[in-house]
């Protein structure tokens, strides 16, 4: 298993490197003079030249890129053009908030989506199953930001139960987690349901039934693990989308997280901060995918035994 983890970690490095290159290139070709952003009203030709030299902006593209990556490896994301503080500090300050929201949403999706999906998959003709289908269908089409606004209107404005913004305490996490997670919850629910339906009509389920296994154990012992595989894949694919959606959630609920920082930095033309946010999010996606793959490997004996030194 450790061999597998190391292998996957090593595979991650070139991907993150390549991604940094892509994002860096996009930002490099941004029209406009960054020194104008840095200097603002104090802009003079001389000052501009001086800063360009200081930051190495006068160097060729590849020199700049190599320098950026070199700094990145040491954990240095550069200086913000606006606050003149290290980008890494901003990220450290903001990232935990993003993490909380994403983790909350993840919990919401999985804790609700999987059991409902399993249940309605085993009883495909029940009322609950049909209701699940409808909710699932509507849920995947709900825009995060609109759902967020509706939740605020209902639970904060009308009922006054939950705060509409900020990130103080557990209660402030509930609405953002639901808003961010609803789409993916619906998606996970639908996937689990249909893979459960698919698994339940497999030959090996019939074999188990012919052995006299009870309905409950058919689901628990025979169907669930097989049905979980597509669900885990969907969860893995959704982590990226979840991190994309966090930009919207943080905007709706005024949460000072990485997503908000990204939008602010884009508006301020603060290239190092934009780069920093994108790189951090890409790393998050890569790490989450790794975790999902590890869970997958744990469930699928074929991958597991490949790396545990067993036979086959």
């Amino acid at each position: 298993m450790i061999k597998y983890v190391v292998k996957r970690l090593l595979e991650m490095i070139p991907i993150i490197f390549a991604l940094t290159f892509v994002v860096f290139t996009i930002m490099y070709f941004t029209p406009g003079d960054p020194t104008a952003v840095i200097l603002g009203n104090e802009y003079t030709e001389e000052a501009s030249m001086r800063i360009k030299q200081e930051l190495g902006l006068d160097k060729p593209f590849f020199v700049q890129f190599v320098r950026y990556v070199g700094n990145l490896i040491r954990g240095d994301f550069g200086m913000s053009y606006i606050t003149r503080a290290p980008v890494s500090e901003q990220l450290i300050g903001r990232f935990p908030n993003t993490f909380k929201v994403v983790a909350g949403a993840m919990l919401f999706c999985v804790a609700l989506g999987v059991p409902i999906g399993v249940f309605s998959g085993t009883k495909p003709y029940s009322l609950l199953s049909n209701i699940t289908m409808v909710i699932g269908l509507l849920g995947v089409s709900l825009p995060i930001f609109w759902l967020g606004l509706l939740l605020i209107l209902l639970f904060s404005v009308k009922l006054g139960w939950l705060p509409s913004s900020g990130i103080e305490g557990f209660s402030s996490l509930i609405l953002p987690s639901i808003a961010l997670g609803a789409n993916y919850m619906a998606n996970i629910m639908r996937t689990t349901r249909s893979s459960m339906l698919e698994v339940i009509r497999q030959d090996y389920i019939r074999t188990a039934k012919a052995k006299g296994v009870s309905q409950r154990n058919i689901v628990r012992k025979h169907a669930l693990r097989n049905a979980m595989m597509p669900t885990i894949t969907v969860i893995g694919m959704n982590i990226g989308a979840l991190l994309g959606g966090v930009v919207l959630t943080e905007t709706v609920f005024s949460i000072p997280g990485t997503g908000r920082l990204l939008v602010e930095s884009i508006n301020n033309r603060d290239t190092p901060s934009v780069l920093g946010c994108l790189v951090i999010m890409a790393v998050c996606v890569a790490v989450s995918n790794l975790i999902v793959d590890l869970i997958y490997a744990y469930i699928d004996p074929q991958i597991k035994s490949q790396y545990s030194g067993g036979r086959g």
Partner: protein
Amino acid sequence: MTETNAVRKYSTKKEFFKEYKKKSRLQEIWRMFLKNKLAVIGLVIFVIIVLTAIMAPLISDYENDAIKMNVSERLTPPNSQHIFGTDEIGRDIFARIVHGARISLLVGLSSVIIALFIGGIFGAVAGFFGGKVDGIIMRSMDVFLCLPDVLLALAIVAAFGTSLVNMTIAIGLSFTPKFSRVVRSAVMTVRDIEYVEAARAIGATNSRIILQHVLINCIGPIIVQVTLYVANAILTISALSFIGLGIKAPTPEWGNMLASGRAFMRDNAYIVMAPGFAIFITILSLNLLGDGLRDALDPRLKQ
């Protein structure tokens, strides 16, 4: 052969005969599609939305109703004159939604066409030639897949500015890797089927094979993906506009209507209802349509 399989096999065998004896394949797909009520509802709603977008100037006047400030009527709740009410500077929300549909559909469709074109070329080449070519193309596409497409679109918009054209390109490019995957796998499934082999054997050139046989035969899954990604693109446009990096006011766009209405929603909840619902119903209709098409094109997937 198990009995259930036999039943399934019979029904496809029957369809097989129907297909070639009585009806063309298209008619058969259409018949399957019509059986799916949800998909038909989706199609009807989407057609209504498209017609609304096309006839927007006939339905309401762009300058007078959708753009011009009208302070005396600001924040009027829905009534017979303004069925969705008016916004914070007195513009008719209904008119803005109708005109907003044009932008959403225009950007949605054109960005997917961009993605399909670029991604399609890469995917078809990768899928058809396989081996090293496939490896190089797909590994580079994988890099992009690591970044959520909203973020990729954001980065592109951040770099090149927020014009309508830039946004279309940004969304198109951010979907490109996904389309290359779809086209690649579609091409790979038909690549080894006998008739392609046969075409090769009689000496048809590679490009002709790709175009004539492969692309024609993988058009089905591509249409499904196009439908679903138009929905995705429309969502992305409104999302970008909502966070202020897309279409800017006063141009009516559903996402920026939500963004500007947000500040007033505490006392005027209706202001965020209609624009949000417009996004929701458009995406829903496309999702229903896409799911229905997928089931109709591949009856085996139906549960």
